[in-house]
C-alpha cells in the first residue's frame, strides 16, 4: 500500500485503536515491572496498564504529527511511495519521542515500578503487530483499502 495523507492517519488511528489495544491488553501483564510500591504483581497491574495505555495514546496522537512529516518526506520521492525500510525506521524515532514524553508528562513510571525495558517491549510489540497487520491482513479485511491509499472511510 502506498499511502496518502488521509490514508496514513486513518490507518494509524484504526490500527492503534484495534490491534494496539488488543496487544496492550495481552502484553502488559507479562512486562517486567517490580512490585516495590505494591505487595503483589496483581496489585501493580492497574498502574502498568496506565503506563502502557498512555503510551499507546501517545503513539496514536503524536503519530498524527509524525504522519504529516512522513507525508512531506514522501513528496520528495518520485514514486510517491513509502517503502518498507522507511516504515521500519520510523519505529526508532517514534519510540524515542514517546518514551521521552512518557517520562516527562506521563504518569510517573516509578509509581508503578516500570523500567524502560518494559516500555520498549510494549512499544515494539504494538508497533510490530501494527506493521504486519498493515502489510497483509488489512488487504484481506478491506479489499479496497490498498487502492485507496490506506483510507478506510
Amino acid at each position, binding site marked *: *500500500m*502506498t*499511502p*496518502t495523507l488521509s*490514508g496514513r492517519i486513518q490507518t494509524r488511528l484504526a490500527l492503534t485503536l484495534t490491534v494496539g489495544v488488543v496487544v496492550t491488553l495481552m502484553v502488559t501483564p507479562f512486562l517486567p515491572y517490580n512490585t516495590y510500591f505494591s505487595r503483589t504483581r496483581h496489585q501493580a497491574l492497574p498502574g502498568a496498564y496506565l503506563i502502557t495505555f498512555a503510551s499507546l495514546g501517545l503513539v496514536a496522537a503524536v503519530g498524527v504529527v509524525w504522519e504529516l512529516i512522513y507525508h512531506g518526506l*514522501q*513528496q*520528495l520521492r*518520485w*514514486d*510517491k*511511495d513509502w*517503502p*518498507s*525500510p*522507511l516504515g*521500519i525506521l520510523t519505529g526508532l524515532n517514534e519510540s524515542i519521542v514517546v518514551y521521552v514524553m512518557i517520562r516527562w508528562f506521563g504518569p510517573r513510571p516509578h509509581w508503578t515500578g516500570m523500567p524502560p525495558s518494559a516500555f520498549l517491549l510494549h512499544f515494539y510489540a504494538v508497533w510490530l503487530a501494527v506493521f504486519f497487520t498493515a502489510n*497483509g*491482513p488489512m*488487504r*484481506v*479485511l*478491506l*479489499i*479496497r483499502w*490498498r*487502492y*485507496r*491509499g490506506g483510507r478506510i472511510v
Partner: protein
Amino acid sequence: MNPARIYTLVRISGGNDVAGSMLGGGSGTSDVIVDLPSELNRRVTWTDLEVSRSGLIVRDVPLVTVGGGIGSFALIDSLRIGGVSVAAVAAVGTDECPWDSITRLARASQLGDDDRLRSDSSSTPGNIWGFPSYALREAWKRRSLAPVVNVLTEPIITDFWTPRLSQVMDEMRREADRINWWAVFDRGRVELIRERDEGGYFILVRRCDTDTRVVYRSRWVHVAVGYSAIRMLPDLQSYRERTGDAERVVNAYESHDHVYESLARRPGSVLVRGSGVVASRILERLIDDRDEKGLDTRVHHLFRTYVGGSRGPSIMLRRPGADGWANQAFNWPKSCWGGELKQRLERLDPEGRMELLGVLGGTTTPPRKSWQDQLVRAREGGWYQELIGTVVDVRPSGDGRVSTNIIDHDGAKSELVSDFVIDCTGLEPAIESHPLFADMLAHAGIERNPLGRLDVTESFEVLGARSGDGRIYASGAATLGGPYAAVDSFQGLQYAALRIADDLAEQGFGHRIGVRRSLRQWVRWVRDRPPEPAGRNEAVAP
C-alpha cells in the same frame, strides 16, 4: 498526431485479439469484415426478432467479457468471489488460457518461466487480495527468509523483489480451476458487438473449434482485448516491406531466437533500439550469451532520447535517470496503483490528466543492479557502444548486413552497419487499429478520451455506450488516458475488475465484497475451495 499513422502494424501471431485475422486487411467497418445476412449487417441496432430470423444460435448470458486474457480473468474472478454463478457469465477469447498472450510476449522478449517479471510482489492476478504476497509464498515454498528480507528492505537496500513468470502462471491456473473459469470460457473470436433494441447487447462470436457462429444476448459487456498488434518502428517496417527481410530486422516481441543462434555460430554485431525494460532484457540476454558461451558479440545501442540524470518539471516531480535510461521500478510510479498519484489523477479534469500522464508516463526501465553492472562492464570492455540520435533510414548494406543512417542532435550524420537490428519499442496502443474497437467507434457511439482511447468513468464504464439498461465496461491498455494510469498491469486489471464488480453489484448483479465476504472468501482461497454458490438473494439479470 495520430499514433496509428506513425506506426505500422505487425500482427501478434495467435494473440488474444478478437479479430486478428483482419489486421492489416480490413477497413475496420463491420459491413466489410463480416458476412452476415444483409438485414443485420446494415443495422446499428438489432432486434430479437431479426436475430432469431437470421438463424443464428442465441445464448442468453447476463455478462460477457471479451478478450479472454488476464483482464477478463480478473473480472470473472471478482464476480465469482462476489457470488455470481458460472451460468451468469461468459468469457470469449481466442487463446486457450488467460495467460497465453503474456507468456508468448514474455518468451519472445527473452523472459523464460524462471525469469522475474517487472511486477510487484502483491500484484497477484490469481489472488484478488494480494495476500499472501508472492514473496511470502516463495519464502514458504523455499523455506527461506530471503524473499521476505528483500521485500522489507526494497528498494532502498535491495532491488524490488519481483515474481517469476512461472509463479504467476501457476497461481493463475490454480485460481482458474478454483473458480471454474473453464466452464465460463468459450473459445472464439468476437466479431461484432451490437446494441439490442430492447436494451443490452448482442455479441457475435465465431467459435474457434467448430468455426460456427453464436450470438450472446447480454445486458453487460466487458471488453479487455489487450494490444492489437506489435508496433514496429516506421523506418524498420519500411525496410522490411522494401526488402522482405524479417531475419536481420526483428521486433523484440516477435520470436527471434535465430538472432542469438546466429551470433553463437559466428561473431556479429547487434543494434538495439529502445530504452525500456525490453531493451534491458535483450541486452542482458546478449551479454549473458557473451559471458556463458564466450562469444564476441558487439552491441550498439541507439537512444532517441538519452536520459543523463533526473528529469521532471519540479523537485517534487523528478524521475531518476542515468546513462541514457529513465529509471523506475514499475511501468508507472508506484503510487499510481493506489496512492497519491492515483488520487491526484482522479481529481483532475481531462486536460489536467493528460498533462500529468505526460509527466508520469514514458519509457522506463527498472534500475536493477545486475543490469547496471553488466553495462558498466560492457562499456569498459569496449564492445557496448551508446549512440544518440534519430534514424534517417535503414537499408541493406553492400555486404548483406543492415545499414542504419543516424542523425544526431547536432545534425551530424553517421552510418552504422550491423548484422541484426532488434526493435525494443513496444506494442500498438491505438484502439482504432483493433477491428472490434474500430467497429464500436463507427457504430456504438462510444466516446474517446483526449489520448484517443476509450473514455471510461471511474467504474470503467465506457461512456456513450449505454443501451437501455445495458452497459459496456472496458479495462486494460484501451482505457489509458482516463482516471487511472496503471491500467495495463496485473494489479491495474484487478483494480478495474473490482470497480466494475462494485458497479455491477449496485445494479443487482452479484454482491459487493464487504469485510465478511472478503474474509470468508479469502479463507476459501487459502483452502483451495471453490467460491460459495450464489446466495439466495443474488439477483441475476434477465
